[in-house]
C-alpha cells in the first residue's frame, strides 16, 4: 500500500483554525493527512508537543499561526517564530529531518492558503517517507 503520511497540525484558534474552518465553509478540497489540534495561540505549542507527536508516530508536524503583526495576543507568533529554529535544531539532534516540520502563517480569511499549505506539507512529507523515530525507539526499548 502506498505510504500515507500522518501529520499533526497545531493551529491557533483565532487565525489559522478559523482559516481552516473557512476552507470548509468554502468547500475547498485538500489532502486528508493533517490531523488538527486546536491551541489558543501558536506560542502555546510547547516543543515537547512536537517531540511527542514524532514519538507517537507522526511523520510530520505543521504549526500555523496568525501572520506577523496580526497575532490575536499581540506578539505570540513572534515568540513562535523565535522558538522555531531552535526546535528544528532540537529535532535534528534526535535524527528527525527538520523538513518534517513546517511553520506557516494562515489568517482567518485564507481558506485557500490553508488548503495549499496542507497539500504542500503532505507532499513534502510523502517525499521524505515514514519517520522512523517511533520504530527505532520501540526496538531500542525492546533491546534494552
Amino acid at each position, binding site marked *: 500500500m502506498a505510504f500515507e503520511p500522518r501529520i499533526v497540525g497545531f493551529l491557533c484558534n483565532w487565525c489559522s483554525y*478559523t482559516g*481552516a474552518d473557512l476552507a*470548509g465553509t468554502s468547500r475547498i478540497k*485538500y489532502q486528508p493527512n493533517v490531523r*488538527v489540534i486546536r491551541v*489558543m495561540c501558536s506560542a502555546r505549542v510547547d516543543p515537547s*508537543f512536537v517531540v511527542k507527536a514524532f514519538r507517537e508516530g507522526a511523520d510530520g508536524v505543521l504549526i500555523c499561526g496568525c501572520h506577523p503583526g496580526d497575532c490575536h495576543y499581540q506578539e505570540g507568533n513572534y*515568540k513562535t517564530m523565535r522558538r522555531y529554529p531552535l526546535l528544528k535544531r532540537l529535532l535534528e539532534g534526535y535524527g528527525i529531518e527538520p523538513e518534517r516540520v513546517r511553520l506557516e502563517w494562515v489568517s482567518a480569511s*485564507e481558506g485557500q492558503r490553508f488548503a495549499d499549505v496542507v497539500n504542500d506539507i503532505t507532499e513534502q512529507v510523502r517525499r521524505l517517507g515514514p519517520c522512523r523515530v517511533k520504530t527505532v525507539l520501540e526496538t531500542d526499548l525492546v533491546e534494552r
Partner: protein
Amino acid sequence: MEGQRIGVYVCNCGTNIAKVVDCEEVVNSVRGMPGVVAARCYKYMCSNPGQEMITQDIRDLGLDRVVVAACSPRMHEPTFRKALAAGGINPYFLEMANIREQCSWVHEDGRAATDKAIALTRAAVRRVALHEPLEKRYVEMNKATLVLGGGIAGLTAALELAMADQLVFLVEREGRLGGNLARVDLTAPYLDSARDLLTDRVTRVLRHPGITVLLEAELTELLGYVGNFVARVRGADGAVRELPVGSVIVCTGYQPFDAGRVAAFGHGRLPNVISSFELERRLKEGKVLTDKGRPPQYAAIIHCVGSRSEAWHPYCSRVCCMTALKYGHEIRATHPDCFIYDLYIDMHAFGKGMEDFYRRSAEMKTIFILGGKNTVPEIRAAEPRHGCEMLIKAHDLLCGEEVEIPADLVVLMVGMEARKDAGVVAHLVNISQDRDGWFIESHPKLDPVATTTDGVFIAGTCQSPKDIPDTVAQARAAAARILARISRGQLEVDAVYAEVNEDFCSGCRMCNELCPYVAIEYDETKKRSHVISALCKACGTCVAACPSSAIKGRHFTDEQIYAQIEGVL
C-alpha cells in the same frame, strides 16, 4: 481516570457530514474505549432533540464527560456547553471533534475522511477524560462606551446608548459628523433627503449631555480587556486623553472606490466623466451641467465600477443599483428632456420598496442596457458631428451586439471598499479583516455585530457594504448588546486562564517578560511568580516557555494536549 462515564455523540448534520463520513463507523470506533459508556449517532445534534439526548443521557446514564463530533467548536461549542450545564455537569467537561468544516466538507474520499473523523473523535475522547471542571469568572463592567466613527452608524449607536442613560465617547477623525452620508443628496428608494436623516441626529448627539464628541480625534491605543478598557485618544489639540470604557463599537465606514483606476472609463481624463459622489455634490448645489455649463442632453450611468469584477473587487457593493436609479430620477427632475442610459450587469433590487422603484424608473423611459460581467464599456470623446460630448462603446447582451451610446455626462457608480487604514484600526482594537479588508464578525449569521475580541463590536459599512437601514439596524444591535451587558451589572468571562504552581516555580521570571498583557507578577518576598487571572487572556505563551513546567494553561494543559496527540495518531 477510573470510574469515568463518557458519552460520545456523532452528528450527521443532515447529510453534510454523513454523506462523506461513515458516522456509524465513527460511533463503533469509540465503543470500548476506556470510560465510554454511550456512543450514538444523530441527524442534528444541535437541534433541541439532539441537545436533549445529551442532557437525558447525563441524567439516566450518569455521564460526567461528553464528546460531540460535529461542526467546528467555533460554531456550536457554546450550545453544547449549555446542554451539559442543563444536565447538571460542568460545561468544561465537553470536547468537540470538528468533523464537518475540517473533514467532511474538505475531503471527497469517504474512506480517508472516515479514518480522519475516527482519529479526531478518538483524540477528543482521550482529551475529555483529562478535562477539569472550571468555574466562570465575573468582572465588573465600566458602563461607558467608545464609539469610533461619527457617520450614520456611530451617531445611531451613540444616541441609542445615551438614551438609555449611558456615557458615550464618540471619536471622529474629521472635523464634522455625518461621515459619507453627509455627501449624499437624496436617498433611494423613497427620495427623501439624507440631510434630514442626519441633521436631527447630529444635533441630538452634539446636545446630549451623556455624549462626549471628540472631533479631529483618533484612537491611538486600546488597553485592558472586556468591561475594563482604557482608550487613548489623541484630540485636535494633539493631547492624548485616557478614556476608561467597558465596550467599543467600531463604525469606521468605507471609502468610495477610486474610479480613475479603471482606465477605460477615462475618469480624470474626460471632463464629463464623474463619479457618483461628484454627481451628489452637483445635485446638492442644484447644478447638473457639463463642463461647458450646458445641461446634458444624454446622461449615462455605469454600474459596478470597482464592484463585481475580477480585476477589482469581487463583491457587490449593494447600494449602487438603487442609487443609480435615484440619479435617473434626480437628473430628470432638473432636466426633463435628458435621455438617460443605465448600463448595468444585474439589477439588484433586494430591499423593501426597491423592486417598485425599479419599475417606476423603467416607466420613466430610462434606457437599460444589460452588459456582461467583466466587460468594461469604453468611453471616448466625440467629434462635433456626433452632437454629443462622448461616445460609449458597450456590449448589449440582450441584442447580442456592440452598441454606441451618446453621452454628455457619464456617472460612474463607484462601489464601497474597506478604508485603506482599516488594517490599522483592526490592529488597534484587535479584530480581524477578511480578504477584502472588511472587519470580520463573530458569526456571519448568528452573531453579526460581535467580533473575536470580547467587548469590541462592529456596525455599518466597516463590516461590509450595506445600505442605511441595515447600517442603522446593526448600530442599534451593537448598542443593544452592550446595554444587555450593562443591565446585568457583572460580566461573565471565560474560565480559561493560566496559573502558576508556586511549589514548582523557581522564580526565574522568564514568564514575566513574555506575557503580552503584563498579567504575571513577581512576588519579591516569596520569590515566586503568579498570574493575575483577570488580566490573563489564556494565550499559553508562558505555559510553553516555563522551564520548570510550573505554569498550567487551564483547559489546554500539557496532559490534555499529549492525550490528543496520542489520539490522532
